[in-house]
């Protein structure tokens, strides 16, 4: 079973590597979206510093939704997904593997890039570390919950918009605790509680989201 999971992750990473423009595209979107905010609200360092966690997190949410339709659509188009459904391996595992690969391609680089953007917003090093930690804990949740939305909107009309409409309301707790972790640090409180809650959310999503996504895939392909 672990072999299957590793195989799926490896396969999706290989496919993403062959079409690296897709992954780089959503990363580029993240950087551009973050850079637009200072242009929109003005360059005052204090205002930017207080906005930074929220801006980075919202941009991360949007970048994640942008890359969600890719999660299943290519496999759906060439029939691979149907073979996966017919496979003797549990579909839940396959979905989990695809979500992990999606995170490795979209969430992880985004989180690793965040200190650079935080620097532009004038965050200090401790806030930067908390931001990085919150993104590392939170972006996997985005991939897992997003897999449910992607599976539900598979084959629907205008699925790109639909996926955002479905996923974004479900993402709000991640946004609250992710951006809240950095804010809490700035307000003098510890960020640990927020990070622990994000960790709990990750465990929760890891346990439940693959099941829901697998059920949605079965519905989409029945």
């Amino acid at each position, binding site marked *: 079973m672990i072999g299957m999971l590793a195989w799926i992750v490896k396969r999706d990473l290989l496919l993403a590597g062959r079409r690296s423009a897709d992954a780089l595209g959503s990363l580029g979107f993240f950087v551009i979206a973050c850079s637009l905010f200072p242009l929109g609200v003005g360059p005052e360092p204090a205002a930017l510093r207080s906005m930074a966690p929220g801006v980075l997190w919202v941009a991360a949410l949007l970048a994640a939704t942008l890359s969600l339709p890719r999660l299943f659509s290519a496999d759906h188009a060439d029939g691979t997904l149907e073979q996966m459904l017919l496979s003797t391996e549990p579909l839940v595992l396959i979905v989990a593997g695809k979500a992990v690969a999606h995170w490795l391609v979209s969430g992880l680089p985004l989180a690793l890039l965040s200190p650079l953007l935080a620097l532009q917003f004038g965050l200090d090093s401790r806030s930067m570390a908390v931001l990085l930690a919150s993104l590392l804990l939170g972006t996997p949740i985005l991939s897992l919950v997003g897999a*449910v939305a992607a599976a*539900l*909107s598979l*084959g*629907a*009309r*205008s*699925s790109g918009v*639909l996926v955002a*409409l*479905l996923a*974004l*309301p*479900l993402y*709000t*707790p991640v946004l*609250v*605790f992710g951006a*809240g972790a950095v*804010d*809490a640090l700035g*307000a003098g409180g510890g960020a640990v509680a927020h990070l622990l809650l994000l960790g709990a*959310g990750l465990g929760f999503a890891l346990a*439940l989201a693959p099941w*829901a996504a697998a*059920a*949605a895939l079965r*519905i*989409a392909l*029945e």
Partner: protein
Amino acid sequence: MSGHLTPGAGTVAGATPGAIHRANLQGRARRWLQFASPAAFYGPAGTLATLLLPLSLVLALVGLYIGFLVAPTDAQQGDAYRIIFVHVPAAWLSMVIYAAMAFWSAVGLVANTRLSAMMAGALAPTGALFTFLALWTGALWGKPTWGAWWVWDARLTSELLLLFLYLGFIALQAAIDDPRRADRAGAVLALVGTVNLPIIYFSVKWWNTLHQGASVSISSAPTIATPMLLGMLVMALAMWSYAAAAALLRLRCIILERERQAAWVARLAQGEHA
């Protein structure tokens, strides 16, 4: 569902009282289960709706009478508070309808009954309407009392997110062409939303306390006068019966649309034209 049952066990001579009781229960269950068929429920849905609509009208008149004429003027907010008689029941209903939608979605997924999924689909627009109504009246109430149309209060924000969940459900069902697929996908979404709703509520609540302190608090409302509570309850019942009637009428439309190839719909159409 009734695969393992022994039909007619009650008529067998020498059956134990337990068996007779079981058979009675089975008979009753079957009588109810026949309404899982869209064709069988089409008529009763119309009857129920025609009963509930006048009931909701009467209750609304009584509730508004209590709200406007019997309930005393609030010491702090004056007469502006009277929107509570629309606002609070609408907010209750917005959550109750989501719960009902999730319930019927779960039934539809588990028992694979078409009518349950249709019911969930019929409830969604009414739920979205009440959520919008709660937000709208909240804004109208907020302006004179808080001085702002909108405050990022925990309840307001989570109600707004509830509206987004409703809209997502409606959009998903509208975007899938195959009705059975749309039903089932919507059901999964409704259940995912139900799991997520408490998390959203508590996260927003915590976010709110972190950000703006207790500048605006509607959770620590003072104890309210009995006519106020009574008016609110009557209005809640009025909205409840309106919501049920509206959902049932919409359900009838959905049934006709889905079953348009069926013989009974053709007979119905001929009967109406003749």
